[in-house]
C-alpha cells in the first residue's frame, strides 16, 4: 500500500493506517530532528510532535509533494522551533552529546605526526571533526548532516530547508571546506 493510500485511509479515521505511516518514516523524521537538535532525547520528542502535528493537519496535505517530504518539512520546523530555545542551546554547548561521548570513550592512540594518514581512524581525529562540524554555522551544518543521513534526496533537503537544491549542494561543499580549515588550524597537516 502506498503512502497516499495510507493517508487517505487515515483521513477516513483509520488510526492503524497512520500507525503504518509512522513506522515507515520514523527513522527519517527522527534523524532530521537529530540533525537539528543533536540530542537523541530532544530529537525523539520533536519527532513525536511532528507526527502528532502531521496527523492533525492531515486534511491540509494536498499531495503536491510526497507525504514523506511534507512530513519532513513539518519535522524540521518542529526541531528548529525547539532549537531556538535558549535552554536547548545551552544544553548543546554545556553538555557533550552522546556521539561525542562515544568518541571520547574510544581508545585513541597518540598521533605524533598528526598527518591525516596517521590520524585516520584515530578517535581524537574524529572527535576534532565532530567539534569542527558542531562549530559550523547552522546553515552549513544542517545541510551537511542531512545530506549524510542517507534518508533524504537533495530535493527533499531543499524542501525542508526551503532552499534551492543548488544552494544545498554549495552549503555541503562549503561545510567540508570549513571543517578542513578548522582541522588545519588545529595542527593537522595535509588535510586538503
Amino acid at each position: 500500500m502506498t503512502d497516499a493510500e495510507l493517508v487517505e485511509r487515515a483521513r477516513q479515521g483509520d488510526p492503524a493506517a497512520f500507525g503504518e505511516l509512522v513506522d515507515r518514516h520514523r527513522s527519517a523524521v527522527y534523524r532530521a530532528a537529530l540533525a537539528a537538535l543533536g540530542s537523541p532525547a530532544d530529537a525523539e520528542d520533536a519527532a513525536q510532535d511532528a507526527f502528532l502535528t502531521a496527523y492533525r493537519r492531515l486534511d491540509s496535505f494536498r499531495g503536491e509533494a510526497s507525504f514523506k517530504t511534507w512530513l519532513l518539512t513539518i519535522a524540521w520546523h518542529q526541531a528548529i522551533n525547539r532549537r531556538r530555545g535558549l535552554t536547548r542551546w545551552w544544553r548543546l554547548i554545556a553538555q557533550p552529546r552522546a556521539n561525542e561521548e562515544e568518541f571520547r570513550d574510544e581508545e585513541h592512540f597518540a598521533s605524533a605526526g598528526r598527518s591525516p594518514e596517521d590520524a585516520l581512524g584515530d578517535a581524537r581525529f574524529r572527535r576534532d571533526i565532530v567539534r569542527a562540524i558542531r562549530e559550523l554555522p547552522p546553515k552549513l551544518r544542517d545541510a551537511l548532516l542531512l545530506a549524510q543521513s542517507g534518508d533524504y534526496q537533495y530535493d527533499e533537503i531543499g524542501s525542508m530547508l526551503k532552499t534551492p537544491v543548488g544552494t544545498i549542494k554549495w552549503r555541503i561543499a562549503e561545510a567540508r571546506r570549513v571543517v578542513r580549515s578548522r582541522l588545519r588550524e588545529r595542527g593537522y597537516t595535509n588535510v586538503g
Partner: protein
Amino acid sequence: MLDERDAIDRHIDGVARAMIDGEPRADFTVRVMRRIAAPRTHAGAWLWTPAAAAAVVVLIVVSFHRPQVSAPAGPVAPVIARPTSPAVEPPALMPAPVVAIADAKPAPAVRARPDRVAAERPMDVDVEPLSVQPMHVPALDPLDPTAPGAIGIEQLSVAPINIEGENK
C-alpha cells in the same frame, strides 16, 4: 592534493553520518499513537498560564509604583511632613552607633534628601532652606573627641528641636 582532500571529505562525511546515526526507541510508534488517541489538551493552557503570571507581575509592579505617583498629587500636606522627617531621622540613628556615624560622613546623606524633595516638588522651594539647615548641623563636627558616647547624644537631641520649631 585532490586525493587527500577526497579522503578527508569522506572522513568528514562518515563522521557526520555517525553524528545522526540512530533510531528512535522501539515503542516510538506506540507512544505516538497513544498521544494521538489521548484527548487533545487545550492549547490555551499554554497561553493562559504565562499570561496569568505576567498579569500578576504587572499588578505587583503597578502596586509598588502607585505610592510614588500619588505622592506628588497631594501637594501641601505631605511636603511639610517630609522635610521634617529627614531631620528627625538622624537623632534616631545617632544614639546607638555614634562612632560609626561619624566615620560615615553623615552630612552628604542628609543633603541628598532635601535635593530629592526639591526635585520632586518644585512648588516647595520655600521649604528647602529649612531642611538644609539641619543638614549642616554643626553638632556632627565635634565628633572629634576620642570618647564619643555622651557628647554625641547631647548634640543630637538639640538639632531636631530647633528644626521643628522653625517649621512650625
